[in-house]
């Protein structure tokens, strides 16, 4: 057990802190919806120049060109979260690694530089009304007509489609092949005729997701990543690079500290919440949970840093992290009581209503990206070795 970072990493952290002190005021607000503002694009460019965004993307495609290093990436995430400053991005965390690994040279030159600059924004066309957890059953089809694919069908839960410039999309191109072998991975502009984006308003009152309808959408034949029929494997190839992005323990810790502030600042009948043993015990239970997940995260990180597969500690991150974040939002709302249900621009609103938004959005994260129940299947089958459910006879 060695918790100290070597001098190299300490130096890296110091330099990053210096950068954030000097330039942090140029950061756009931590979150904003829609296309990136000019300020956000300029900020991203500054981060790339200093190696705090697109860090491992080769220079030739506009990145910083550093070797991948898990601990450096962790330090960057930690320091940006601590400073409350907008973190940089690597274009799209699924599309860009996929193109880098499996795209042609022409595709890399076309797609990667504008993506990491934030000038080409992506949405992901995976889920369909009939294909959620069972994604490989998807039925949106693409047929080759001369030099073009012709796409017909519908996607759903497409985050950010109303603002996106491009979509990467799974479509069925080989209807007679077994379901995993009949899918291709296409990329196309959202301005292509025949695409109809209809925002889906969620319980938060905002449209984060969309339905996207395709009617005879014509896409040049070469706008495919990998070969036809291999789209399922192209899409899953990048999953191996994912490190439990959903359920990140860093975020939970900063949320926890925010709740501690609420408990110290808010009062009922003039008594601070932190002085109520009932609320306090609930806060402390959350703290215990948060610490357990934090150290599990450090353990996972250490495995990745040594290029080892962490196994079970990794499989549980999404399930536990999303649930904990949801519980934190619930705790904040309950601590605020009646004030916790205020919304929009109501008088007496606290924290701009962020806790209710989180409570609702975090429920979406428990469902999205592999539902909690699918996570439990994966934990049971892949980590614990329990048998799969037998297939229904009709399949």
């Amino acid at each position: 057990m060695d918790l100290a970072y070597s001098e190299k990493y300490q130096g890296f952290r110091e330099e990053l802190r210096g950068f954030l002190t000097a330039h942090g005021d140029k950061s756009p607000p931590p979150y904003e919806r829609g296309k990136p503002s000019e300020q956000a694009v300029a900020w991203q460019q500054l981060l790339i120049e200093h190696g705090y965004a697109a860090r491992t993307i080769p220079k030739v495609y506009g990145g910083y060109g550093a070797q991948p290093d898990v601990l450096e990436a962790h330090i960057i995430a930690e320091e940006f979260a601590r400073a409350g400053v907008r973190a940089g991005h690597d274009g799209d965390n699924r599309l860009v690694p996929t193109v880098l690994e499996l795209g042609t040279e022409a595709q890399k030159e076309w797609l990667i530089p504008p993506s990491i600059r934030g000038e080409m924004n992506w949405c992901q066309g995976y889920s369909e009304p009939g294909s959620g957890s069972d994604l490989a059953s998807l039925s949106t089809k693409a047929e080759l007509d001369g030099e073009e694919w012709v796409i017909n069908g519908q996607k759903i839960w497409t985050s950010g489609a109303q603002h996106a410039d491009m979509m990467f999309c799974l479509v069925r191109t080989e209807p007679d092949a077994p379901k995993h072998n009949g899918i291709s991975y296409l990329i196309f502009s959202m301005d292509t005729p025949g695409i109809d984006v209809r925002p889906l308003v969620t319980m938060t009152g905002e449209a984060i997701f969309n339905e996207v309808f395709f009617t005879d959408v014509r896409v040049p034949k070469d706008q495919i990543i990998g070969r036809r029929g291999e789209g399922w494997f192209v899409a899953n190839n990048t999953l191996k690079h994912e490190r439990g992005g959903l359920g990140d323990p860093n975020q939970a810790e900063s949320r926890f500290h925010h709740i501690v502030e609420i408990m110290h600042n808010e009062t009922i009948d003039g008594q601070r919440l932190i002085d109520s043993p009932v609320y306090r015990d609930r806060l402390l239970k959350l703290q215990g949970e948060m610490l357990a997940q934090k150290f599990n995260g450090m353990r996972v990180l250490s495995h990745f840093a040594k290029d080892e597969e962490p196994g079970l500690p990794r499989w549980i991150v999404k399930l536990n992290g999303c649930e904990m974040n949801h519980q934190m939002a619930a705790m904040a709302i309950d601590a605020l009581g009646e004030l916790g249900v205020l919304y929009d621009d109501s008088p007496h609103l606290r924290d701009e209503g962020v806790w209710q938004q989180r409570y609702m959005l975090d429920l979406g994260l428990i469902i999205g990206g592999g539902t909690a129940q699918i996570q439990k299947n994966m934990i049971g089958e892949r980590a614990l070795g329990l048998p799969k459910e037998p297939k229904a006879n009709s399949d």
Partner: protein
Amino acid sequence: MDFGLTEEQVMLQDSVSGFLASAAPLEVVRQAADDRETQVAAIAQGLAELGVSGLLIEEDFGGVGLGMLEAALVQEALGFAVAPVAFTASHVMVPTVLQMAGSDAQKDEWLPRLSSGEVVAGVAVTEQIGRRDSGGISIGGDSLSGQAMFVLEGADAQVLLVADQGGGLHLVEAGDFEVVPLKTIDRTRSVAKIEFNNATTQLLPGSSDSREPLLQMIDAGRIMLAADTLGAAQHMLDRSIAYAQERKQFDRVIGSFQAVKHMCAEMAAQLEPCRSMVWYAAHAMHAVPEESRLMACHTKAHLAEVGRFVARTATEVHGGMGMTDLLGLHYWFKRIGVNRQLLGTPELVREEAAAVQGWV
């Protein structure tokens, strides 16, 4: 930065687990529940030969001189095996505090004998955490009177470490106290009420004007109870997975039903982070002293909660068999149940965590 165990630490835990698997299988644990003396001596002897009894004791006193993380790994193995032997009080709490606050003469007298496994030492500190019934010690001159409840490893002890109201710590030798064994649900370890009537004591000099030795000893004990629960709960989870892969109903192994699979996944998802938490809390005792008390409190409380969840869920996975003495799963269930209450219930310990952070 490397959050994990060294090869030596893994080997240490493997060797203790391996020994216990052969020396303390369930039949032996069952026998020990009825006849502690015969069964326990052989297991304790074997553990002493592996260096377990002197794990934390400096080499000058015949020990191995390892740290709290190694002790937690051993305790986890003991919990996994529901081993019916003294360790938490006798070989972790007492050596920790003797080395910290004992006089040279006290160290010379007791550390070598604890290290060799020749004596067992009990710890009487419950009244410093949360007094129940008639517990309470009063000190007059160099003698102690009163009674101590829930003395850890007290029924087997030749010497006791007793805390007074001021946090002073006293050694009291056998012959100067009367043991009233308390029967708990867990028959694998001894807990006793101990009565003192003008017992002669020796104060640990380092504890005369500081509560710190007492508190550090309690921190160490809490981390050990958490580690013990981790091991016991891991055993129950492993048994559940094995049973779910073997037991058939409706022509299928029950582990292929999502209802059962998800119970196992939930246990694993809750328990696995506890391992990292125990490692960190134990490591922090030496390496991150500013966090060590908070970590000891949270680790004790969190493992108590997760342990309870795993104990009942694992029992449910086994269906009616889970309730039977025949299967014997209840030894682990009960060990986890007792760990939860000793050295502070989760509710009390979380309040201490609040105090450590200045919230109370």
